[in-house]
């Protein structure tokens, strides 16, 4: 029964790929991804995977949401290609939106969909954005919605309206039992994100993305500017080449007192 399936919203952010050199925009307000390309953070890839699994297992719906420029549709299509079946795009200049603004905009979508009788049992986000690293959007969202939130979740299950969220805590494994609706921020590592199939990619193209405008003007990020740490000149000392360097390596261990 589709009525009884879980309705999961998963929030993703278009961010510059961090696998190569970081370059800043000329106004120093953002990391420039035009050379490196764009992606979503590994945390969010896992959040998408969890959302799709929960929706598939219960005959529910996994909806992807992103706040960002027009190009963010690419990240939403990627989420659709791996199993999300609906997508919402809040079209806005993400750089001008601080973490409190983003939380307010996600909350506005959740409330609007709730009013239309398509509210969410679970809202999943990444633990932190790969570019701005604010570590707070999911928590601010929970307060805006008046919902409980569990942070840094690896995996979760839902049984009879109770979520068991598993966290790798500072002293070991922890489980939170929280009633739906709730918010969870996801850390990479609990699930393996799937790759899109050709069929998935084709299906993703056909989904109509719901476009929305921001509900309010942004307060902003309180960012003055971004800078790059000064490049450290290479001072590497080559100990040797190949296996013949072994003696020099062990000499180094002895000098450092680690053997």
């Amino acid at each position, binding site marked *: 029964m589709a009525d009884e399936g879980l309705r999961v919203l998963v929030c993703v952010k278009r961010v510059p790929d961090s696998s190569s050199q970081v370059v800043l925009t000329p106004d120093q307000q953002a990391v420039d991804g035009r050379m490196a390309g764009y992606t979503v953070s590994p945390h969010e890839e896992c959040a998408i995977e969890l959302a799709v699994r929960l929706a598939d297992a219960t005959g529910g719906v996994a909806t992807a949401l992103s706040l960002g420029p027009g190009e963010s549709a690419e990240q939403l299509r990627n989420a659709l290609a791996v199993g999300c079946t609906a997508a919402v795009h809040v079209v806005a200049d993400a750089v001008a939106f601080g973490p409190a603004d983003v939380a307010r905009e996600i909350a506005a979508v959740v409330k609007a969909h709730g009013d239309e009788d398509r509210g969410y049992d679970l809202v999943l986000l990444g633990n932190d954005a790969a570019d701005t690293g604010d570590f707070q959007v999911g928590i601010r969202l929970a307060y805006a919605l008046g919902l409980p939130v569990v942070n840094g979740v690896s995996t979760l299950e839902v049984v009879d309206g109770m979520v068991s969220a598993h966290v790798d805590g500072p002293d070991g494994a922890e489980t939170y039992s929280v009633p739906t609706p709730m918010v969870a921020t996801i850390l990479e590592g609990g699930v393996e994100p799937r790759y899109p199939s050709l069929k998935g990619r084709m299906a993703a193209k056909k989904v109509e993305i719901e476009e929305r405008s921001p509900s309010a003007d942004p307060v902003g990020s309180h*960012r003055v500017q971004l800078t790059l740490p000064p490049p450290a000149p290479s001072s590497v000392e080559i100990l040797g080449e190949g296996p013949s360097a072994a003696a020099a390596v062990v000499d180094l261990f002895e000098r450092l007192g680690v053997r």
Partner: protein
Amino acid sequence: MILLWLECDAAGVTDISLETVAFARSLAAAGGGIAIRAALIGEVPEAARDQLAAHGVDEVHHVSGPSYDAYAGAAWASALQDIRARTGCVVVAAAGSPRGNEVLAHLAARLDVPMAANVLSFSGLSPFEVTRQVAGGAALEEMRLSQRPALFTVAGHAWVATPADTPTSPAWHEESPAVAEADLLARVSARGETKEEGPGALTTARVVVGAGRGAGGPGGFDHVIELAGLLDGALGVSRVVTSLGWRPHHEQVGQTGSRISPELYIPCGISGAIQHWAGCSSSKTILAINTDAEAPMVTKAHYAVVGDMHEVVPAVVEELKRRRG
């Protein structure tokens, strides 16, 4: 006044929390001798008392009681909110640990003020400006915190946890602020085994031997594991290794894995993408083993051996064994 939330483990106040105290002392001095209050929530080991005195904390609020028996981010923030309201602290800070960022984000949402995560330094008091790590440490952000209280977390390894020049005799307040039911909804309800292996061991190891794509496959880690064992160290791997399923995620070093700061880090067959560098750049000494002398990991290292890890590492293992007899 500055209010710090400090985390404890079985041995006492955590290192990263003591680094936060060092940051706070510097901020307090810049402000003309502002008092530092520390909030500790839940169980506190005996050693913490001496540590707080040695590190120059002026007042301690120890929060405990049935509402604080199991961790709940909202309840922890509720206690801090209560202490802040009573003491009028204009700054609230915590360590840039997973919990520190979480609790301060809760407090920021409750007070509707900005929060700066992973701060490295401050550059002015009015306006209060901080510099923090973004993009996994690959870029820095200058951020203005003009609202009060100013909330931030201090990035790990940015400050050294040195004791204060003048120890204090902190006044100790036992407290149990009331917590609303709603703040206890998301609460740890069950705990597994205390971990011995895993991220804990990796983040505190004196020596970490790293392995990346150069390992070649799930069977390519025997020699690096043997080397780590001989050096009483831990194995750390790059993101490629965990996303290919060659090794478990808890061994990952990087922006989405563990941040390490060993005496010696030995990355083998790791090219040194920003994502990985974010997790290992605090290592005191780096010895890279890589076939590519131009790889970022090699040029950023202190020492390097140019060669195939599958040839170099076994030779190092043999040499170590030979010298030990």
